[in-house]
């Protein structure tokens, strides 16, 4: 029994191995495209597409949306959107091979699923705001910025983790 549990807990890769592979992938991405990876960019494109479809005049007049709207081309037609679709499938593929596919709300036993979902949604809103302000998230600003030693990339990563450590005490019930 104990042995079985041990096997189950060893299913994730060693983080240094994962980090090494991800580092190689970022090198490859820069080598091929001249840019790094990203994740929040695809979600921005989705929002621009929806707003442009619902209220085209409003999107044209907004100084932010209009940056990403081109005549005769869908705002979804960007590199980052295709990459994000790949991430979804990549996650699915790895999960399928490791037997982890399961529709669940993951949360600490100390909180309810409902509370977890509300907190997750709130966290997303804050993260979305922050990623726009900093012009990228942990992938675009962090990983891709740090690979080419961008000062802004290092700064944003330090702020994300620094803030997390500063406030983690107040969120402990949600997680442990």
């Amino acid at each position, binding site marked *: 029994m104990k042995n079985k549990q041990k096997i189950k807990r060893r299913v994730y890769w060693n983080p240094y191995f994962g*980090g090494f592979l991800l580092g190689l992938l970022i090198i490859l991405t820069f080598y091929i495209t001249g840019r790094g990876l990203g994740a929040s960019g695809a979600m921005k494109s989705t929002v621009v597409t929806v707003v442009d479809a619902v209220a085209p005049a409003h999107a044209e007049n907004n100084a932010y949306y209009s940056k990403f709207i081109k005549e005769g081309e869908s705002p979804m037609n960007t590199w980052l959107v*295709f990459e994000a679709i790949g991430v*979804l499938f990549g996650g699915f593929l790895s*999960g399928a091979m490791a037997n982890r596919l399961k529709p669940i709300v*993951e949360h600490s036993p100390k909180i309810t699923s409902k509370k977890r979902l509300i907190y997750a949604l709130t966290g997303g809103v804050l993260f979305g705001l922050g990623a726009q302000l*900093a012009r990228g998230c942990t992938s675009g600003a962090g990983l891709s910025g740090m690979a080419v*030693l961008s*000062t*802004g990339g290092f700064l944003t990563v330090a702020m994300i983790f620094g803030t997390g450590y500063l406030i983690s005490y107040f969120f402990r019930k949600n997680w442990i």
Partner: protein
Amino acid sequence: MGPLIPNGLIPIEWNFVIALLIGLAFGYIMEASGFSSSRKIIGVFYGYDFAVIKLFFTTAIVSAIGLYYMDYLGWVDISQLYVHPTYLWPAIVGGVFMGLGFMFGGYCPGTSLCAIGIGKIDALAFAVGIMIGVFIFSESFGLLEPFFNGSNYGHITMMDTFGISPYWIILIFTVIAVIVFYFSDFIRKRVKKVFY
């Protein structure tokens, strides 16, 4: 010499196929490393699981060493690569917001996508939240624009900031990372285990 697409060595038509394949590998690596679980990710803040720090720093070091080595060998022209620009205050405030969002939600945009891939409903809520956040930002862009475009330092690197060569930056960063790795294991052994 790389980068291949900007230098016309791979036709632009391949761009989206490449994007899909790179995303696939990105999602696979994250999921296999356990980043589809918010409780594993968030362990970095409570000392019971440091996979995030270990993977993140290893990735940064491997990619920085690799890219500068390829530049040294003449395989890639590092000056052609896109450097994330530094807008000082937006980078700081944006980072604080993301830190807050991280503690509330337990994901970042990339990890939420790969967690959706294996069926995490909380990750879906997080991703919907991101889109609401982007929407709020865009709708208030008129107000935020002066701040958003202020304190622009351009595409600066750590070499510009500290005035030393990239090789020193990478070496110092690597030494710091190894010390952090050592201490993270030291802390983890002393913290109560959390099962998730």
